């Protein structure tokens, strides 16, 4: 199992720096691990901790948040907001038994395609060493996404149609 284990990394990349860094890595034909699934966000500050938790909850082995270097944010201080949340989230995830390497914050400017590619390579190796997270199965003992009550809650916050008890 672990021999063929390819970790899944959900990557939240900021539109102005890191997503362009990924673009650059591509146009420069840099070879790096194909394990990150990039999701473009307007700013790393847009990454709600709920996104990170949800990715882990739904099967990701790790989450990478990437943004502009401090001081270079397109929105002045969006990345500082990210950084504050990230440090607190890291401490909280430790209590929840999520290894530190599974959620990483990376600064990559639009010209740092190489650095971003290296970060993805490094994280992929770290996750490969840690093994799969598989939260639904390993932690919650679910075979899939059903019958966990989580969906029940989501439907509970939206008023539902009356159904016979």
């Amino acid at each position, binding site marked *: 199992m672990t021999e063929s284990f390819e970790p899944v990394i959900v990557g939240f990349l900021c539109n102005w720096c890191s997503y362009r860094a990924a673009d650059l890595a591509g146009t420069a034909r840099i070879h790096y691990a194909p394990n990150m699934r990039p999701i473009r966000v307007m700013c790393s500050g847009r990454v709600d901790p709920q996104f990170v938790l949800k990715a882990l909850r739904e099967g990701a082995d790790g989450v990478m948040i990437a943004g502009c270097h401090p001081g270079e944010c397109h929105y002045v201080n969006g990345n500082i907001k990210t950084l*504050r949340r990230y440090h607190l989230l890291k401490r909280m995830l430790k209590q929840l038994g999520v290894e530190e390497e599974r959620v990483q914050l990376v600064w990559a400017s639009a010209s740092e395609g190489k650095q971003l590619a290296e970060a993805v390579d490094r994280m992929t190796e770290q996750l490969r060493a840690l093994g799969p997270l598989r939260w639904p199965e390993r932690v919650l003992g679910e075979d899939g996404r059903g019958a966990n009550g989580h969906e029940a809650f989501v439907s*509970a916050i939206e008023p539902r149609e009356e159904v016979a008890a």
Partner: protein
Amino acid sequence: MSVNGKPKLAMYWAAACGGCEISVLNIGEHILTVDEVFDLAFFPCIADFKTVDVRGYPDGYIDVCLFNGAIRNSENEEMARLLRKKSKILVAYGSCAYEGCIPALANLTSKEATLETVFLNNPTIDNPDRVLPQPAYSVPEGELEIPEFYHTVKALDQVVDVDYYIPGCPPEPHQVWAVLQVVVAALLDGAPLPPKGSIVGAGDVAVCEECPLEKREKTITRFYRPYEITPQPGLCLLEQGLVCLGPATRSGCGALCPQVGMGCRGCYGPLPGVEDQGAKMLSAIASVIDAGEAGMEEAELDRVIEEAVATIPDPAGTFYRFSMAHSILRRANDSQSDKV
């Protein structure tokens, strides 16, 4: 409805402290109206009913059941299923039934660790034979059974279908009475009920909106625990370094705690549209941290922020104090997969 035409009311406690029952009795003289309007069908805290009585009722016999407490063991789950079957309206009453509350903090550890603490390691425990509760035990008279202790604490809606939720630890009396009035109007006069799945007896803005303390949009370099400082009256507690979860908590309580100098604990649950209260609280708390001067070196910036967050000793327990069972991750990873 029964022979005397009165609707039937039930209230039951699962993994709870009993505070929810008291909160119903705490509605003051309105309790007389409740007695006038309803017939009690089951209410172990204040009247002598047995489970076997409930089993004997036809399905849907109880008009309204206020179910409080989380689902901690097999007995809690059995009662939840029984009362669901026997009730027309099942209400998750209070934070435990709604989202796990204090019992669900045990989801941060394992079943084994919880039992060991309670039965072996607490300073006041004297258990030389290291006896732990067993689900079944043979005695000369036969087999004895106790309910099975679950690995993961669940909210009521993770076990049965729930019609309404009343948040709060415990719900505030004026909110309880407001909800009961709606129910009475519906049962007696056919007034419309809120849509199924609604959160009732609460507001839909943040506690901060109800809180009279003055906010000055000040950032801070560290947090304090409540015993460490005496807050200045009249000013926002969060801006004084006291963890207050008002920004990410549903209103309805009237911001009682912040007004007496105790930061909001978050018992009214997440705001509408929020899935994970802890994550939102984390964001809110992080937003008051002072990130220092612009242009700081990246390593220095990390250090300043790390030092500030390190003054919160138990982030998970603080942010998920009431909502662990409903959180996205639901429990901590204790690497013991097959024990839910």
